[in-house]
């Protein structure tokens, strides 16, 4: 009985992220449009796009191999699972022992791996540009992410997201400089990983500036749809990651009553709304930077993460 | 053993050292030969004296060999060779005579220094003789390395051998001295009248060992 409820909750969580991911994307777009004094597409536009694309036939380049065709599903699956394992409205989910924070980061890594391979498969130069730049960015983003994981897990004594959330909610957490630093670092990483301004512009199709879009240039139809879905899932994932690690308030824990779950969902929606708004404002406020300045940008994140870890030792007194 | 025996022995030994110095100093071929003959003569005399005072008749043989071979035959042969090779001009020594003499004196001092602490029970006779013969040997070596000319190097080597004979005879009752001196005379013979000089003569127009460096193998 217990198990079934847990499984149910886990399933709800999975469906929740799957369902509201496009909504978040649409919401951010809409906000940006408003900030740029445009009317912008309706909030539900992403769903329409997905449905439209799914129903279209897929056009494959002559040279495309099975890698090109299976990559989208692999990307989608890994991203979905990763997103489903990050607590959104409730911690202690039944599958959460399957993967701690490091494993979740690694899952995203596999998704990136598949995407980069897909970019190289057709054998045009655009895909290559995208993949190589993506890997370069990742090579800087991942250590930064790991440093953040260190900081948090050194505080909470765990890499398990549920425990982290519990710790941050708990009383013994004072105001921590290092937490703030790692939050900033995490935001930078999230921006880079989700191909947002200033690292990359999801809206552009100007070859020399695009990274993510360059890789998926050859995709069409259902494959494109699946990749887009994965992209918005990833965005959502990072939002809920930040929420879970730095603002876990209102999170329900497994085995609690329905009311707590409802509160959890509610607070989660609020967090998403606030986060989305901030993102939109930030993106409108900043300009895209040259590709080779991205390394400095992410290097800053890495430094912040390292600094946070070391500061922790100083503040912890051994 | 009476004083006289000792003194005579010392006289001969000291004379040998003196002769070695003269060899070092002498830089004319024929002069060199003559002094070497003297050197050999002194050796044979001292050996004979040792034979006399040690009552060791077999040493007379050694003395005779020294006299005949080294004091007479070899100088004559060398004289011939020198004439034939036409090298009876003055021979350049390496470095000035002055330094060489100084070095020689230093060597004598060294050999005495080395010999002093030892052979307390071996009797003064042997000790002095050893010191002298060692200095003769060292002087001979010095001569070999301070001359560029094969003949004078050979002479230096022979003076070394004289020093050895001196030492061997000084060692009282040492067996095989005769055999050893014979063996050495064989080397000398080989060196002097042996195939090498002729071969070298027919291969090169000089006996200057320096010139043979050109024929060294293994150079790129």
């Amino acid at each position, binding site marked *: 009985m217990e198990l079934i409820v847990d499984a149910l909750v886990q399933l709800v969580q999975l469906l929740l992220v799957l369902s509201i991911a496009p909504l978040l994307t649409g919401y951010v777009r809409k906000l940006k449009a408003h900030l740029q004094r445009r009317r912008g597409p309706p909030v539900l536009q992403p769903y329409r796009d997905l449905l439209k694309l*799914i129903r279209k036939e897929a056009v494959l380049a002559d040279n495309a191999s099975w890698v090109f065709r299976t990559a989208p599903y692999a990307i989608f699956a890994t991203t979905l699972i990763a997103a489903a394992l990050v607590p959104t409205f409730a911690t202690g989910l039944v599958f959460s022992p399957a993967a701690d924070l490091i494993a979740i980061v690694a899952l995203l*890594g596999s998704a*990136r791996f598949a995407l980069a391979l897909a970019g190289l498969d057709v*054998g045009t130069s655009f895909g290559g540009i995208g*993949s190589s730049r993506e890997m370069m960015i990742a090579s800087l983003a991942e*250590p930064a992410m790991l440093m953040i994981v260190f900081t948090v*897990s050194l505080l909470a004594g765990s890499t398990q997201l549920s425990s982290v959330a519990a710790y941050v909610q708990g009383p013994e957490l004072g105001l921590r400089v290092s937490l703030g630093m790692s939050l900033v670092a995490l935001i930078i990483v999230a921006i880079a990983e989700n191909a947002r301004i200033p690292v990359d512009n999801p809206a552009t199709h100007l070859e020399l500036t695009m990274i993510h879009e360059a890789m998926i240039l050859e995709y069409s139809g259902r494959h494109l749809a699946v990749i887009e879905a994965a992209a918005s899932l990833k965005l959502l994932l990072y939002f809920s990651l930040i929420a879970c690690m730095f603002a876990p308030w209102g999170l329900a824990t497994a085995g609690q009553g329905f009311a707590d779950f409802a509160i959890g969902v509610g607070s989660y929606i609020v967090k998403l709304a606030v986060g989305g708004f901030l993102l939109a404002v930030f993106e409108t406020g900043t300009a895209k930077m040259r590709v080779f300045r991205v390394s400095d940008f992410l290097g800053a994140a890495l430094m912040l993460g390292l600094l946070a870890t070391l500061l922790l030792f100083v503040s912890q007194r051994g | 053993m009476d004083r006289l025996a000792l003194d005579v022995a010392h006289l001969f030994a000291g004379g040998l050292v003196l002769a070695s110095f003269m060899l070092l100093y002498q830089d004319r071929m024929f002069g060199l030969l003559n002094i070497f003959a003297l050197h050999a003569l002194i050796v044979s005399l001292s050996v004979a004296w040792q034979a006399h005072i040690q009552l060791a008749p077999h040493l007379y043989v050694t003395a005779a060999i020294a006299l005949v071979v080294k004091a007479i035959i070899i100088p004559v042969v060398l004289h011939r060779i020198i004439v034939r090779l036409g090298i009876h001009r003055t021979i350049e020594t390496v470095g000035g005579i002055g330094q060489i003499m100084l070095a020689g004196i230093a060597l004598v001092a060294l050999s005495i220094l080395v010999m002093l602490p030892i052979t307390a029970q071996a009797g003064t006779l042997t000790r002095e003789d050893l010191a002298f013969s060692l200095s003769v040997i060292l002087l001979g070596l010095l001569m070999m390395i301070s001359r560029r000319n094969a003949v004078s190097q050979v002479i230096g080597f022979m003076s070394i051998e004289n020093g050895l004979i001196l030492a061997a005879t000084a060692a009282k009752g040492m067996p095989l001295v005769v055999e050893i001196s014979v063996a050495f005379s064989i080397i000398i013979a080989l060196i002097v009248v042996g195939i090498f000089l002729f071969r070298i003569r027919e291969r090169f127009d000089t006996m200057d060992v320096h010139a043979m*460096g050109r024929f060294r193998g293994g150079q790129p």
Partner: protein
Amino acid sequence: MALTILLSCVAILLATSALAVAGARKSATTFCVYSVALAVSVAALSIACWMLLTNPGSAATMQLPIGLPWLGAHFRLDVLAALFLVVINLGSLTASLYGLGYGRHEPTPGRVLPFFPAFLAGMNLVVLADDAFTFLLTWEFMSLTSWALVMAHHRDRDNAKAGHIYLVMASFGTLSLLLAFGLLAGPDGGYGFDAIRSATSSPGVSATVLALALIGAGSKAGLVPLHVWLPLAHPAAPSHVSALMSGVMTKVAVYAFVRIVFDLLGHPLWWWGAVVVTLGGISAVLGVLYALMEHDLKRLLAYHTVENIGIIFIGLGLALAFQGNDMPLAAALALTAALFHVFNHSVFKSLLFFGAGAVLTATGERDMEHLGGLIHRMPLTAIAFLAGSTAISALPPFNGFVSEWLTFQAILLSPKLPQWPLKFLVPAIGAMLALSAALAAGCFVKAFGATFLGRPRTSASQRAQETDAFSLTAMFILVLLCLIAGILPGYFIDALAPVTQQLLGAQLPAQEQLRWLTIVPIAESRSSYNGLLLFVLIATAGWLGAYVIHRWASHAVRRSAAWDCGFPDASPLTQYSAGSFAQPIRRVFGTLAFHAREQVYMPAPGDTQPARFHVSMRDLVWDSLYAPVERIVGFAADHFNKVQSWTIRAYLSLVFSSVVVLLAVLALWN
């Protein structure tokens, strides 16, 4: 008993190589040699597995009246030896299987067949040796046979050079191990390992031994800065030998380090860990950076060996640090991570080298810039290589991730260490580890993409044919192992428990009873990972998604030309090359690590000559460490060589002066 069988296996191998010398001319020899090697390694593997899993507790020992006369040759089979025997014989099993197919393309079998079994025998013996003499003898014998295999294709000048550097470096390593054992054994030569264990050595001595062991084992394992021979020698050998050298022989070196430092040397000091960890971190990052700059497929793999060895040594160093502070459980975690990575790396590195070998035989090319599009011509090889790349890039659900995850868990325990230097060092090492993992992923995107994806760049890669059945079997056995070790790591961790128990007196909690085969190194609340669950979930999610879309939405497909920006029929050379793929990373890291410089020559408008782009990179390790040694030796040799052309008089004056000096000494002494 087990030991007897193992030694007889070795004897069979040696006999085989002796026979191979005789029958080198005949064509059947290839088949015979490899099948014998296959059978023998199967036997040895099963025995080693039995030893490791049943763990009788007591080690089997044996003594033969050979080697040092008064000592004899001691052999010993304990769980540590058994573990490495598993690695060795697994590698040799697959390599022999692969050789059955690959060996037929060998132009000069006479130069490979006699040495292959001898090489296997040497590696097995090193692990079994139980006294210093036998150990070093077999160790150097292993180097010698592998050298012969490197020299198999000696007509290529580079290979000859590689062989020379390899053998000199190997002997250098052996020399330092020799010195280490000399210290351990003491002046009266207690060479037996049991004698060494019982002896206690002062801190200074142990530190020296550690340094020497680090040099000796590190130079064979390819630890930076002693790695220079590795990327030259490993690729030069035939591919199945490269797989053995890279995947297995480096592990024998790790074994040597573990045996000396953990077993023989006694209780470690904390700063040993700091040293080892630092070296490991540097090797990990530099190795993968080297690999990224490399366009030769086999060289790239060799450089990745350097990286993975670095990861292993990070684990070992952490274990030392924890053990030095009497934190046996943490040490056990770190050591388990290292040993598990030893196994994993041997598996996927052999797999990757087999793939590279298949590509090499199919196209005759090792340079990735001349390959491409092979996924269409050699689909199965491509699948195997892809699996290997995923595994080595430490991506779930494959095995590479698990061991690196465990290493991270060990790193996360570092705050508990009392020493401040370690507190500060270890997180930085963690960052380096993460960096190397991310870069490895990039590097294998490059390797797989440039080799198998895209369009064929040369006619050779257009006409490539799928490789033979033997090779494919070998490869897919390894693929399967990668997956199993990735999704069921619990069993492997439990198998490693007796080893850590023997070396550290502690072991991780048993994993196999846990729910759904989750692995929990310390506590569930702290961290846990479940490869099986992830694998199942991802597979279901992916399959479901595909099924739903294909079932209820469209599954129509249309082929058409790729988007070409309106410039049709571009040549395959215009696609992204390996070099161009590495360019961003080269810009970010290369300028610092390699002094990478880019020169662009752009002719004036109207000038018909082509524009040129040239990248110059320098190997700083070589320039700063090895080139000076070369120069010094050359200088000294030139100057000593003048003596050869002196005159007799000069030589005589040498004699004279030595006489005088000696006399002067005597005079002074008196």
